[in-house]
C-alpha cells in the first residue's frame, strides 16, 4: 500500500461532521495516521481492541447506549470477525459504518487482477497475490454487508456517504480503502 490514499485528516473531518462518538479497532500501517489523530481527539473516544471481533460487539453496545460508533480494522481482521459481526451489528440491524483497510490490493493490481476475480485454489496460493485482498469483497457480499471502494484522495466523500448509508439502512456498511491513509 502507498501513501496516496485518503488523507487521515480529511477522513477525521468526515467523522467529526457525521458526529461519530466512538471508534473501535486495531491500527495497521494503513490506518495508523488516523489512529494517531484519534488518540489525541477531544471528542471522539478511541477504543483499541484486543481482537477485531470485539470491535463489532463493542460498537453495537455503543449504539445501544445512544452513541454513534465506527469500526476501523484491516481486512485480515474483518475475516476474523465473522460471527461477531453477524451476531451483533448485522443481527441487531445496528447502523454501523466500517472502514476496512485493504491489505493486498496493490499486489492484486500489480498481478493484473480485479477484486471480483473468480477464486480457485491456484489463485489463493499464488505467492505474488495476497489472498486476503481476493477474499475481502466476496466475504462482505456473502455476509450481506454493502460496501464501496475508496482508492484515492478524491474519494474522501465516500467516508460520509458510508456513514449515511449505514444510518439510513440501519445495518453495517463498509468502505474498503485500497491505499494507505496519508
Amino acid at each position, binding site marked *: 500500500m502507498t501513501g496516496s490514499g485518503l488523507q487521515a485528516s480529511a477522513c477525521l473531518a468526515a467523522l467529526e461532521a457525521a458526529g461519530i462518538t466512538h471508534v473501535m479497532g486495531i491500527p495497521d500501517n494503513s490506518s495508523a495516521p488516523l489512529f494517531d489523530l484519534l488518540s489525541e481527539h477531544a471528542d471522539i473516544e478511541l477504543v483499541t481492541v*484486543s481482537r477485531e471481533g*470485539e470491535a463489532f460487539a463493542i460498537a453495537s*453496545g455503543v*449504539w*445501544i*447506549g*445512544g*452513541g454513534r460508533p465506527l469500526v476501523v480494522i484491516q481486512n485480515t481482521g474483518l475475516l476474523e470477525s465473522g460471527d461477531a459481526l453477524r*451476531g451483533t451489528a448485522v443481527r*441487531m440491524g445496528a447502523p454501523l459504518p466500517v472502514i476496512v483497510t485493504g491489505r493486498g490490493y496493490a499486489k492484486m493490481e500489480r498481478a493484473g487482477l480485479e477484486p471480483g476475480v473468480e477464486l480457485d485454489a491456484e489463485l489463493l496460493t499464488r505467492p505474488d497475490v495476497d489472498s486476503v485482498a481476493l477474499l475481502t469483497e466476496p466475504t462482505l457480499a456473502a455476509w450481506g454487508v454493502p460496501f464501496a471502494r475508496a482508492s484515492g484522495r478524491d474519494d474522501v466523500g465516500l467516508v460520509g456517504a458510508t456513514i449515511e448509508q449505514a444510518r439510513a439502512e440501519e445495518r453495517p456498511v463498509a468502505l474498503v480503502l485500497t491505499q494507505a491513509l496519508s
Partner: protein
Amino acid sequence: MTSGELLAPLARRRTDEVVVTTMSTVRPWGRYSDSDLDFASADSAMGHAADLALGIALARPDRRVICLNGDGSMLMTLGTLATIVGSGARNLILYVVDNGGFEITGHQPLADHGRVDYAGLSRAAGFPSVYFFDHGGDYAEALDDVLAAEGPVFIHAVVQRGGEGPISRGPEAEAAYLRTSLAESARSLRRAL
C-alpha cells in the same frame, strides 16, 4: 452456590443498572427480573456478551452495566479483559458465572478443564476490584461492597451445575426479554436508556 443464590440477591439490589446476560444465566435471570434494562445476549454472537456490555458502558458512563458472562464465553474472548481495562470504563461489573462446563449443551468440559483462575487473570489484566465467591452466604453478605467497589469490577462466581438447555427467542419464551427478536430487544434497551 446455586444459580439462585447468585442471581436473587443481585436482582434485589439492582436499581437502574443495565444487566446483560448470556448462556446459562439468560433464563434464570428472567425469573428474578423483568426490567426494560435487561438484555439477553442470545441469538447473538457467542462469547461476545462482555464486550457488548463494555460498549454500553462506554456510551453511558453515567450508568452502571452488569454483565453475567459464562466461563465458556469468557474463555472465547479472554482478550476482552485487557480491552475493558484499557478502555478506561469504570462503570462495568463483569461476572464470570463458572458452572464448570458448557451447560447449554450438556456440561461438556471447557478447554481448560477447570484449571483457569479467572480472578487471577482479571487481576493480572488490571481490574482494580476482583472477587471470588463459591458460597452463597459469603456472596450475599459481600454484595453491597462488591457493587460499590472501584470499577471495573470482576467477580468470579462458582455455581453448581444447572439444567439450562438451548436458548431460543420467540413469543412463547419463558423469559420476557426473550420474546422479541435480538434487533427489537436492542432497540428496546436503547429506548430505555
